[in-house]
């Protein structure tokens, strides 16, 4: 499982920074507490090197050492960085009010996503306004092909980008209904671009559906998407609920204008 740490050949990058970053990533997945030996083995580093890097990261508050086990885990500074990322995210900042008002208008949960490689990163999540306990999905990564948020963005990418996305299979089956055939996905994307709205019916989670609209910036580029997610029987009682589609589309258009998109770019 050695990554950047063992391939320092990339031009213009600094090896030790790459190694430090791969330590942080290793602590951010798998078993979250790792000893020096485990880290050096996972990343293919000499033990002394790994130790030096960990000591440095610890001094910066980015990792901390468990007093009982001597193992390392992510430190409090990482939370501040994560929050700073969310706070400084322009789309997220501008989407807060739009998401709130959409959620209260339709009585369902709302999520805002951005494309991160082949997955959608959820940057904002408003709970379904019914006082039930729900888990915060901010930070969740969902494969673009299985969610409406992803399809809403990918449908408006340039031709070459769309082709690259469709060619990057095989696509993961998240439920028995997930579309994974690139040809079918392509026709879905064409439909999304025609209707200005993306839908998904139990393709990410059994029993759940999603309706999402793209959000454009001043260049007319899809910078994100906003959508309603909830029980399939309410969202797709018999095809996507027309009132929800309208509400999501209007929200997408309004948020796009806030992001500086011209009237033409804020299409759909």
């Amino acid at each position: 499982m050695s990554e950047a740490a063992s391939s320092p050949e990339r031009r213009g990058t600094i090896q030790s920074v790459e190694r430090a970053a791969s330590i942080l990533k290793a602590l951010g997945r798998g078993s979250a507490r790792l000893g020096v030996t485990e880290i050096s083995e996972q990343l293919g580093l000499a033990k002394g090197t790994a130790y030096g890097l960990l000591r440095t990261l610890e001094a910066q508050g980015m990792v901390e050492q468990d007093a009982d086990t001597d193992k390392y885990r992510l430190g409090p500074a990482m939370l501040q960085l994560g929050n700073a990322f969310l706070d400084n995210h322009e789309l997220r900042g501008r989407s807060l009010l739009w998401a709130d008002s959409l959620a209260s208008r339709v009585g369902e949960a709302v999520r805002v996503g951005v494309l991160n490689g082949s997955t959608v990163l959820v940057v904002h999540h408003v709970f379904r306004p019914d006082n039930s306990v729900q888990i915060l999905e901010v930070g969740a990564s969902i494969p673009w092909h299985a969610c409406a948020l992803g399809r809403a963005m990918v449908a408006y990418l340039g031709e070459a980008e769309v082709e690259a996305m469709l060619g990057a299979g095989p696509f993961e089956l998240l439920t028995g209904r997930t579309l994974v055939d690139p040809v079918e996905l392509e026709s879905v994307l064409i439909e999304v671009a025609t209707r200005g709205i993306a839908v998904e019916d139990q393709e990410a989670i059994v029993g759940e559906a999603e309706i999402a609209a793209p959000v454009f910036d001043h260049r007319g580029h899809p910078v994100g998407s906003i959508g309603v997610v909830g029980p399939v029987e309410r969202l797709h009682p018999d095809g996507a609920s027309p009132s929800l589609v309208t509400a999501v589309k209007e929200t997408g258009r309004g948020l796009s204008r806030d992001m500086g998109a011209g009237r033409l770019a804020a299409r759909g």
Partner: protein
Amino acid sequence: MNHPSPCHGRPGPVRLPVSTASQSPPLRVVNGSYGPYCVRYGRTRSVVLYAGVGLTHGRRGPEGGADVSDVLPLPTPVDAAFIRRWIRDAADEIAANRDYLTQLDAAIGDADHGINMDRGFSAVVTDLTAAEGLGPGALLTRAGSTLVNRVGGAAGPLFGSCFRDAGAELGDGSGAGAEDLLRALHAGLAAIQRLGAAIEGDKTIVDAFVPALAGFEKELRNGGALDASASRAAVAAREGARATIPMEARKGRASYLGQRSVGHQDPGATSTALLFGVLARVAGRSA
């Protein structure tokens, strides 16, 4: 099902001791086609043979009756009464564990699993109480449809399709036994996997269901009866559910949590273990 009433005197079903039964004069079946049998023996005495005791070496007599010379224990039938008991007791078990299931779900889901399952199974029991004359397969199928229609979240479609397909596979013929139940449960598991695309290790229902059926089958192949097979399945399902604790979820909402899903027992696998636990108790009681 049409329960024949006891012929004479006795207020309800009684078990006929095998020793009594093997005595002459020959027993005579006066009504009933597939358990309970009403058997008349001697001049005035009669008894109803219930599930778990069967007649062998019978000879058909006039008017569809049969002269019976021996009574032997039969394997527990997976009949309508058995399925009804399973579903009813399952509903009680789910209700008793409602808060526990919800608590498990609160850690890695929307904290509604216990509530949804309880609501669904109560609806199933209410619906089935009103529905008379259904065979074992039809009962399961109908319970499945109620779960699909009445339970929100993923649990309704998953458990509902499971029951529906298991019912279709079990059918309503008489004389179904452990082997047929195993086949039906396999059909139920297939429905869950078709819908959810989950495999073992994804931290789902499948992680309790697969070992349960493996345990059931192993015991059955070793000559075990329904009760022993179901009991082995229940133990395996419970262990399977516990084994989801260190897993990282790869399906469902819990997968959005990634690493944070580790350390929590999967609610769906836990419900599955409860259902198999009840199955074992019901099979043990009928044997």
